[in-house]
């Protein structure tokens, strides 16, 4: 009876009309997810997965529903260029697909790539499995919101056996607008049997703003498929960005994920992986480098479900000034996933007395003959190393930055694409205290 009044955040989003697709199952799913979002609102810190990320301040903010001017926003793409990638790309500005900025012509054989809005108009049925879901967990508020309101996103399919040579880039740009607004993107990616793809997901900003972006991605790898997924997150300083990528790996599929988190005021990144087929393998490498009052929360959830699966995750975090980092790495080796190998290492560096990083590795094993290792540390720059560098004439600030950069860079050493690796290093260096 005594339902509390919805927070300004919820109320503002409920004001907006749902996107209408005219597809019965989709409109129903959108409505029901919105109702669930409205009823539960944002999670509080009593929800285990939101323990270190309080949303009280966000709950008081109002975001306009999307950007009616998104098509007209002036955006200079050269600012976000990735050296070496001039392959297919899909560009979104404030959540709206921009055909004029995208590169979708002459797609290589075996690759199909288009905006979700178009896929829904042409043939929605194959998307039903991905888009008809209801989110039921207490921590699912943003997934619900995304399911209800995302009118666009990416549909990417690689045909069985196709090896796509050029990396595909998905670029999400936040552009300054008259008011802070909310945008939502829904991605569906599928690699057929034995298919291979390199995918770059990039979040950038063309000017200061405080938008809210949500992204939900389903990435399915059929038997023996191979995916390299790089995520470069350099959102606006005032931005709020909540992403969830769910990976499903069939037998002998392999995914290598590299994540660099630099931007945003409030960022949540959930990476869920299900090693569902025998012998599937997942390698994840990630770095977050934070400063100011940034709050960045990374949540890895890895489930080993099949025989002889392997996951290896290495994450590094750096927090300067008053920044706050949160890392949770939860691994479950389910019954039947015998002979699996799960390792997770998270090391963090605090560059200031006011910075904070909370890390929590969790490991649950229900299978036999499992090799598992996990560990997490939070520390400071090594005083002896610092003195060694300074004693050779390197000024303190530069010495600190050399050590910090070394701490982060080692994580990307195994990235095979050298230009991408160098680009990540360059982005990182610009970000670290100089």
């Amino acid at each position, binding site marked *: 009876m005594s339902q509390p009044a919805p927070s300004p955040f919820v109320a503002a989003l409920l004001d907006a009309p749902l996107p209408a697709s005219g597809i019965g199952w989709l409109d129903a799913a959108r409505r029901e997810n919105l109702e669930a979002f409205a009823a539960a609102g944002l999670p509080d810190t009593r929800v285990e997965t939101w323990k270190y990320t309080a949303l009280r301040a966000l709950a008081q903010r109002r975001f306009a529903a999307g950007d009616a001017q998104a098509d007209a926003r002036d955006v200079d793409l050269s600012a976000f260029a990735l050296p070496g990638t001039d392959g297919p790309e899909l560009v979104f500005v404030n959540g709206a697909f921009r055909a004029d900025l995208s590169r979708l012509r002459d797609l290589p054989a075996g690759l199909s790539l288009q905006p979700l809005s178009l896929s829904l108009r042409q043939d929605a049925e194959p998307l039903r499995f991905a888009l008809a879901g209801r989110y039921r967990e207490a921590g699912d508020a943003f997934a619900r919101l995304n399911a209800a309101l995302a009118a666009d996103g990416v549909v990417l399919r690689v045909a069985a056996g196709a090896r796509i040579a050029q990396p595909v880039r998905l670029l999400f740009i936040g552009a300054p607008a008259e008011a802070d607004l909310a945008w939502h993107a829904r991605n569906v990616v599928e690699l057929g049997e034995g298919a291979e793809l390199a995918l770059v997901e990039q979040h950038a900003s063309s000017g200061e703003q405080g938008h809210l972006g949500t992204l939900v991605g389903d990435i399915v790898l059929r038997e023996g498929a191979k995916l390299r997924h790089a995520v470069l997150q350099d959102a606006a300083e005032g931005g709020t960005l909540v992403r969830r990528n769910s990976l499903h790996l069939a037998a002998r599929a392999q995914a290598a994920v590299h994540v660099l988190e630099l931007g945003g005021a409030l960022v949540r990144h959930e990476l869920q992986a299900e090693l569902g087929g025998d012998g599937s393998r997942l390698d994840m490498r990630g770095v977050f480098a934070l400063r100011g009052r940034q709050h960045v929360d990374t949540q890895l959830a890895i489930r080993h479900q099949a025989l002889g699966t392997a996951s290896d995750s290495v994450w590094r975090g750096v927090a300067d000034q008053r920044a706050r980092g949160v890392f949770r790495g939860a691994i479950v080796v389910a019954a039947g996933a015998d002979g699996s190998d799960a390792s997770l290492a998270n090391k963090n560096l605090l560059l200031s007395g006011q910075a904070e990083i909370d890390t929590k590795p969790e490991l649950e094993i229900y299978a036999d003959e499992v090799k598992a290792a996990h560990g997490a540390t939070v520390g400071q720059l090594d005083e002896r*190393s610092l003195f060694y560098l300074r004693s050779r004439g390197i000024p303190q600030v530069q010495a600190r930055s050399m050590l910090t950069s070394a701490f982060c860079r080692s994580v990307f050493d195994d990235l095979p694409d050298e230009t991408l690796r160098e680009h990540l290093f360059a982005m990182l260096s610009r970000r670290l205290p100089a």
Partner: protein
Amino acid sequence: MLKIENLHARVEGKEILKGLSLTVNPGEVHAIMGPNGAGKSTLGNVLAGRDGYEVTAGSVSFDGVDLLALEPEERAAAGVFLAFQYPVEIPGVNNTYFLRAALNTQRKQRGEPELDSMQFLRLVREKLKVMRISDELLHRAVNEGFSGGEKKRNEIFQMAVLEPKLAILDETDSGLDIDALKQVAQGVNAQRSPQRAFLMITHYQRLLDYIEPDFVHVLADGRIVESGDKTLALKLEEQGYAWVAEHGEPAGAKA
């Protein structure tokens, strides 16, 4: 060049240097010997400017400036070099990159032009020959995976590249095989010049067979308690430090 007067220093509240005085002139080689825990490395660290070493009394002047007022990097640029007793491994920082950054920041602070990578490479090649270090080591991270002896040789190699005015070598001879010892000695002798001075901390007379010191000092309980020429080292070798203790007045304690 270096004038230490009545130096008192504390580490973690404990007084380690207790009135140490020492004068070093350009071109001189001074050997400092003394029992474990006497304060030899502490002296090196205080001179190089390490945090946590609190000077409670006394003064150190280097070429007329108050050395203790300078940051470690400023001391390096002024020409002070410390070869560490235990060089630290720094994963992720490339040896060559580090050394070039070090040389160029020093040069910049001295108002000299920086070396580009070609010029730097030429310099490195030349110095490597003297030290017989394989250039494979240079492509690794600083000291990472180096053997004990390789670390020590790398210290001398860095000294050769940076060309300091005052080099403090803290037990650079410890842990070296006989060939490496000769190479290190060669490296040091090649650097000897009328403008450059050395402070060599060692436990072994043997090093002094290869690098002939002008003075030998005994540092015990935070003070220089005995000074002499190279024959003092021989006497110590024969009689141990107990002899010094009985020998009477600390030489540098009259502050």
